[in-house]
């Protein structure tokens, strides 16, 4: 085990104001279960889980309330005891509507007393088979906690013919304001160590790279201590501070120097599996303690919050409850963001609840908020130099504004990772990233329509 500096630097990237000092070093605080939980059936990438309860049902903590529904899907378990008040479509953080189970946690199941027993039987990871471990990860409802929410069991089970050579732990946390992963690395380094041991077993003993940005020396120290006695090819790679260092593709390049080809290629195509540090800790809990993924650490920060905190809260906690736990609003926020300021989603109400992928909740006052404008592009090239995917965002945004999605597709807009580096530096305050989103959505819709058409034609 050794600690090395990253020897590969990707082109592009920006340096936003990180504002991490607001929540940095704040110990993780466990939040009491709020009176009402809104548990979405769509907390991961892929098909939403199938709801297994009906209004009026009592559910116990850890009980499966949403069943895995397809290959790319995971189950949803009740984060707390309670009574199902309703099942309705609720707005998610990303703006989509999904079925959600509304739990009244003040009502307790009749007769039965809540048990403190583990929900799943603890497993001895050394004795357990690979299949057992994979099954456990799946049963525990674990999905990537970095943001995308890709089902972890799928990722840990590479398709035949593809071997994982490198397991890369993503502890870059390059998003401004967020300190959740940072704090998890500092406080739960031993859990991460255990998770790595388990994952290495599942993946066939790959080499391990733990990527941490240079602005988290205490996390590096904690990890060094936890991993001191690990055997094999394991390195902690200290990355230069740069946004978007946490992007999967760029992290793979920064740690092992490999370049993931254009979509639909995945990291496994270059022999890499990237997993967020929080997810790794969750795997350790699921295997050793039998504790499914029911809660996660979320950074609540921003200049409109009284006391920024890193909170361990049940998945399904409403934003309003999180804010209340942080002492409420200091000033009326002008913008509320689910996630970080570079890639997070602006939300319209605090009634929205957290999911497994909610890494942060930011309340920003009007001082911290800027407005997009529809100024003309002056061709300055800042976006081009900032784009970590080396696209031409200026061109893409221009053609998308003119409704020429075909030209955007020819300019590789589908490679865009929507990191926001282009809009961040745009002196004309253009909505470049949003233009890319618009083009991508439109292209995806077209491809889906073509597929449906082809399927219909084949059906005839």
């Amino acid at each position: 085990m050794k600690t090395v500096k990253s020897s590969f630097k990707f082109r592009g990237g920006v340096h936003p104001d990180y504002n991490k000092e607001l929540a940095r070093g704040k110990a993780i605080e466990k939040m009491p279960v709020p009176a009402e939980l809104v548990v979405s059936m769509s907390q991961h990438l892929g098909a939403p889980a199938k709801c297994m309860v009906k209004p009026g049902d009592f559910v116990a903590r850890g009980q499966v309330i949403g069943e895995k529904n397809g290959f790319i899907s995971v189950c949803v378990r009740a984060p707390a005891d309670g009574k199902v008040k309703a099942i309705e479509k609720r707005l998610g953080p990303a703006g989509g509507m999904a079925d959600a189970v509304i739990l009244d946690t003040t009502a307790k199941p009749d007769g039965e007393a809540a048990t403190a027993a583990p929900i799943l039987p603890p497993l001895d990871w050394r004795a357990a088979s690979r299949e057992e471990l994979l099954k456990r990860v799946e049963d525990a409802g674990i999905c990537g906690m970095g943001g995308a929410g890709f089902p972890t069991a799928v990722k840990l089970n590479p398709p035949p013919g593809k071997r994982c050579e490198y397991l890369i732990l993503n502890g870059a946390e390059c998003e401004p304001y967020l300190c959740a992963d940072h704090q998890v690395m500092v406080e739960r380094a031993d859990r991460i160590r255990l998770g790595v041991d388990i994952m290495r077993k599942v993946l066939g003993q790959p080499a391990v790279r733990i990527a941490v940005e240079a602005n988290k020396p205490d996390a590096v120290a904690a990890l060094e201590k936890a991993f001191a006695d690990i055997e094999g090819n394991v390195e902690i790679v200290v990355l230069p501070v740069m946004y978007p260092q946490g992007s999967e593709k760029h992290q793979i390049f920064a740690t092992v120097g490999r370049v993931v080809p254009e979509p639909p290629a995945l990291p496994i195509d270059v022999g890499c599996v990237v997993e967020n540090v929080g997810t790794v800790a969750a795997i350790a809990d699921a295997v050793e303690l039998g504790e499914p993924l029911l809660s996660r650490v979320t950074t609540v920060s921003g200049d409109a919050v009284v006391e920024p905190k890193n909170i361990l809260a049940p998945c399904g906690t409403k934003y309003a409850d999180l804010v209340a736990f942080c002492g409420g609003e200091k000033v009326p926020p002008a913008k509320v963001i689910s996630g970080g300021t570079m890639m997070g989603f602006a939300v319209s109400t605090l009634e929205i609840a957290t999911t497994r992928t909610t890494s942060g909740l930011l309340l920003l006052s009007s001082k911290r908020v800027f407005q997009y404008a529809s100024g003309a592009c002056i061709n300055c090239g800042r976006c081009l130099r900032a784009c970590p995917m080396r696209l031409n965002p200026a061109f893409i945004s221009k053609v998308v504004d003119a409704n020429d999605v075909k030209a955007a597709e020819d300019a590789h807009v589908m490679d865009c990772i929507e990191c926001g580096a282009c809009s961040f530096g745009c002196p004309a305050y253009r909505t470049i990233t949003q233009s890319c989103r618009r083009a991508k959505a439109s292209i995806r819709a077209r491809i889906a329509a073509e597929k449906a058409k082809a399927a219909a034609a084949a059906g005839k």
Partner: protein
Amino acid sequence: MSYYLVILVGAVLVNNFVLSRFLGCCPFLGVSKKTETALGMSGAVVFVMTVAAAVTWCLDHWLLQPNGLGYIHTLAFILVIAALVQFIDIAMKRFAPPLHAALGIFLPLITTNCAVLGAAEINCKQGTGFFESVFFSFAAAIGFGFALVIFSGIREKLAYADPPRCFRGIALALVTGGLLSLAFMGFSGLVKLPY
């Protein structure tokens, strides 16, 4: 050799057919919306102008001038060029379908193009030799294509511009063409053409 270089530079840069002599403005404005079509059109013009120069030179020197009919050459040239282009169109479709696919669709546009006739006229007026005439026409066509492709690049960019309503479309193209012509005036005097 350097003489031909002078002809080339003169016809492409200094006395550019479109930007300096203002010949062939119709396709210059009409076929410059996309760079791909501009390239195709340029290819067609180079082909036709070179062939037309050869044919008209022969016509002028062997038929018209011996009979003292120099004064009707404009009439004769139009007739011959129009027929020639039509013939090339048909023949190309038959014998070189790929070439026709690339250039053929532009041929009708050149049938009565003033640039083609203009080149023949200039050759006729200057009384240059056969190879000189053909090369001059070739160079002039290259110049035409050069201007057309540059212009198409600008127009592709302008397609995303947001000009005032009254300047949209061809009005803005004309302003741009004027400015391009202004820029090309910088080349004036670069070579002293024999004509």
